[in-house]
């Protein structure tokens, strides 16, 4: 059982507040989805959890299994079992997927790394994700379509076997078929590994494949409302504006905080 705990986190960049007293706890086996308007700090949240030092933590805590991870480097956090599937994965010129994947998996598994089982698992996962087997010889994300980049993130997730998965808009740039494949594969991995998942998304479609138990609405750097899938229905019908303007009580949703603009 693993727990990622974010407590009262306030984060700035160049003096501008992006996250404001943000709190959230994710446990193994739980799927959380965060939705919210653009520029509200959703992506920043995932980057700060992962340790991106472009942001400054003003106050608050990030704990993984009780340990304060704020001082840990990005790679140390990854090696604890936290994985971030990025919105815009970077292309790396001159480094083939084969070399890259072998490097990251062998770094994680150290002396337990064995080439043959690695290749076997790689081939199987590439097929499962309906990816072009030749991608393995191409440079990391170089010339990849939006869909290929996102599938490549999920491939890395499968190979690294993380316990806590953060997926930042993993559905953006995906066509209907790829969305289904990505969604079903994330769910399959979650069921098999019992990992905790934090999904950042704008769309309901992804949540039809990866069903979250908890849905949070984020505005102005904090969660303003938490609930279940009924909250997604409400947002689809009414947009975020109404939530910002008035407190709504829908079904079983628990109103945590209302945006300060109210």
């Amino acid at each position: 059982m693993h727990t990622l705990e974010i407590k009262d986190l306030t984060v700035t960049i160049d003096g501008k507040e992006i996250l404001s007293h943000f709190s959230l706890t994710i446990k193994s086996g739980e799927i959380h989805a965060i939705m919210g308007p653009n520029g509200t700090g959703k992506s920043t949240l995932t980057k700060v959890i992962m340790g991106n030092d472009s942001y400054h933590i003003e106050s608050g805590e990030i704990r993984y299994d009780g340990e304060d991870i704020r001082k840990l480097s990005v790679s140390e956090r990854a090696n604890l079992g936290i994985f971030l599937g990025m919105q815009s994965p970077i292309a790396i010129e001159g480094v083939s997927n084969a070399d890259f994947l072998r490097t990251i998996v062998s770094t994680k598994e150290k002396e337990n790394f064995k080439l043959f089982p690695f290749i076997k698992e790689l081939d199987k996962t590439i097929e499962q994700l309906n990816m072009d087997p030749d991608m393995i010889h191409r440079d990391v994300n170089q010339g990849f379509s939006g869909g290929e980049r996102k599938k490549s993130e999920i491939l890395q997730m499968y190979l690294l076997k993380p316990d806590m998965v953060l997926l930042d808009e993993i559905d953006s740039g995906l066509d209907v078929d790829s969305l289904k494949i990505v969604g079903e594969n994330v769910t399959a991995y979650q069921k098999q590994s019992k990992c905790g998942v934090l999904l950042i998304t704008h769309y309901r479609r992804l949540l039809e494949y990866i069903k979250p138990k908890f849905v949070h609405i984020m505005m102005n750097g904090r969660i303003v409302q938490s609930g279940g899938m009924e909250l997604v229905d409400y947002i689809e019908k009414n947009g975020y504006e109404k939530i910002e303007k008035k407190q709504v009580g829908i079904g079983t949703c628990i109103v945590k905080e209302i945006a300060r603009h109210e």
Partner: protein
Amino acid sequence: MNKIKVVEETVESKLSKKISFTVKEAKSELEISELTIQIVKDSDLELDFSCTSKKWKINVEVLSDVHSQFYVYQKAENSKIQYNLKIHSNASLQLFKFQMNANKEMMEVRLLGEGASIDYFLKDIAFDKETMDYYIFHDAPRTSSNIKNNVVTTQKGRAVLQVSTFIPKGMKECIANQTNRIINNNEMKNEIRPNLYIEEYDVTANHSALIGRFREEELFYLESRGIDEQQASRLLLEGFLLSDVTNKKMRKEILKSTKKEWR
């Protein structure tokens, strides 16, 4: 693979009939040795200048309709080499060059006939001052040049890279690309001078220049996969120097050098 190895003033070779060469030895200290290579049929050639610190002038001529690949190694300290490359109509030359240490070189490329093209890829680890001065002349219409220089500086290394492309009036439908990048791993001053002297309207020309370090988001991406900063930087460096190079020997040589310098 055809091979020419230059050891100080002498030339050792292992060549097929597709390539002919002549050598003019320097008679005095002030004189420059000269190697003239003619590519008669489609072929590849490895040119090794890693064992000479003498001044050399290399003349290469690729005849019409001939396609050739060159793999050049230049790892001696303080080498001074001048290249004159002549490419005739519908001929192409792909030149991959891996160089290290400190070099001073001048290269003149003449695209002499319609359809002539050059693809030039420089992979350079500068340990001391490197000066590269390249001139590319589009002497015929529909010629193409693609010049891609990737330089990494380390220790006392710094680079001055001047690339000048000339397309005179009347040389229609030429394509000229220049990509010049210097990744500096030290605090030394580097320079890129990209020049495009174009007198014709009907051409496609691009250039990009970068002096700096790898981007934070590139390192963040790699580190988020569990590899530390040092390993992530080395991976980016290797990728920077290996990109476009498919030749196994050259890839091996580059990796050997990066592993030695960035353990």
